[in-house]
């Protein structure tokens, strides 16, 4: 976003030291002020897929592509770039693309309704171990100079060095929450202590002190637990639990890695429900 006092029709050149009290001038200053540079109506870009998960031997290339479509009524140019997730989340926005991921072409010009492909090639170096994660961004290139408001679709590329996966994790915390519809659900924090991401799925059985099953909640699928992080997942909702002591027992799977099942994160805990009156 840019603010400027450019010259030209409809703009005002503001100078230091002008008498602010002059009514006409004050009006002009108030109106012209900090005008952001244009960011024109964006095209609607559609990108598929948004997740790429690859297991590949080191020093052997794997390739694939995204489909990019211009869903708008005007031409659009899409710029494509990649950044490691570590650099991106750390804010190193201008870091170079990861060396193990190549994208081509770096930009596409699409007519209304047109689609094309952007190819990816993954080549992990000798000795690579575990998983590398990058984000590939697709943004519409601005047609105006100085445009700095940018909308982008970010897609994840997970590249696992085949045979080196060490999935591991545990359930760190379980919390009971109320939802907006009067029901309750669980928030489960899962710590990933391995070297590869997983998408946990499973169920949590909730029993009362009398050992009756009060609810069975399903862990919502799709979320990614990244290595070295604790990630909070939620379950489906269930009717409010009775007061008192409950036992929560979960069976959670982590997926398949190099054709082998990952660890199960089974466990249980005690939940004491007390409702304020």
């Amino acid at each position, binding site marked *: 976003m840019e603010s400027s006092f450019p010259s030209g029709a409809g703009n005002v050149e503001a100078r230091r030291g002008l008498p602010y009290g002059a009514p006409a001038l004050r009006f002009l200053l*108030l109106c012209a002020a900090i005008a952001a540079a244009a960011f024109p109506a964006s095209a609607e870009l*559609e990108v598929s*897929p948004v997740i790429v*998960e690859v297991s590949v031997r080191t020093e*052997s290339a794997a*390739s694939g592509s995204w489909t990019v479509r211009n869903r708008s009524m005007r031409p659009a140019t899409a710029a494509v770039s990649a950044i490691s997730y570590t650099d991106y989340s750390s804010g190193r926005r201008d870091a170079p693309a990861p060396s193990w991921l190549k994208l081509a072409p770096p930009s596409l010009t699409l007519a209304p309704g047109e689609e094309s492909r952007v190819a990816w090639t993954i080549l992990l170096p000798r000795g690579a171990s575990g998983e590398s994660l990058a984000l590939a961004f697709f943004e519409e290139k601005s047609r105006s100079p100085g445009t700095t408001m940018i909308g982008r679709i970010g*897609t994840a590329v997970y590249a696992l060095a085949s045979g080196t996966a060490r999935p591991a994790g545990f359930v760190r915390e379980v919390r009971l929450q109320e939802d*907006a519809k009067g029901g309750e659900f669980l928030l489960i924090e899962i710590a990933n202590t391995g070297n590869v991401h997983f998408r946990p799925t499973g169920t949590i059985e909730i029993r009362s002190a009398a050992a009756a099953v009060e609810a069975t909640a399903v862990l919502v699928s799709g979320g990614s637990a*990244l290595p070295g992080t604790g990630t909070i997942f939620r379950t489906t909702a269930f009717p409010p639990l009775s007061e008192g002591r409950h036992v929560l027992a979960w069976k959670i799977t982590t997926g398949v890695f190099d054709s082998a099942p990952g660890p199960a994160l089974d466990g249980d805990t005690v939940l004491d429900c007390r409702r304020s009156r």
Partner: protein
Amino acid sequence: MNRLLRSAAVALFERAPLAFALCALAVFVASPAHATLDDQESVPMSLTVMGSASLSIQPKNVSNNAPASSLAFALPAPGETLSLSSQYVEVSFNTNFDNWKIKTYTSSGRSSDGINYWGALIGPDTAYKMYLRWKISDTVATPALTSGNWNSWTLYKDPADPDWDYNSNYLNIAAGGAWDGGWAQLPNGSSCSSPIDLYVAGSAASLVPGTYQNRMYLDFIHL
């Protein structure tokens, strides 16, 4: 199709033509994305691809909701420090993936000095900044902007800020998933649907004439 797959396909065709036909159909149907194996050797590889998404952003005038080409701020009036942008940003999004977030932040390109904050429009003299905040809404309704509710607006964060945290709620304007019939919610937990509207306001005690700038991003992230 590389040499190894071709050889395997020929062998299968000769021995079990029907199985060959079914395999060929399965490969065609099950491969929504294109992928290839290395031509040099048999490479154990697995590939999983998921989801599709679309995004468009459109500034619109707060006054009449007409499309606009820019965001503009009026200088705060004498004695005032707050200024609402004359435009909001309509964010239209769609995805069928189970886990997504839309994040907004500035990107000044600076390195953190551990002291200064850069979620702002920055003048040529960096001592002059218009600090930015945002509000997100599921409906077109200009949020109130007063000194009393300024703290209810969310700070714009910049990677050069001393407390930059990519996972903080300062960056998240919406999140959602495709499960349970599809859901999306704003930071306050209320549900929303596309499009959502991003309002931006600035605070400046005093500004001198000049060009104020920063890069601002709306990232539609899938992990």
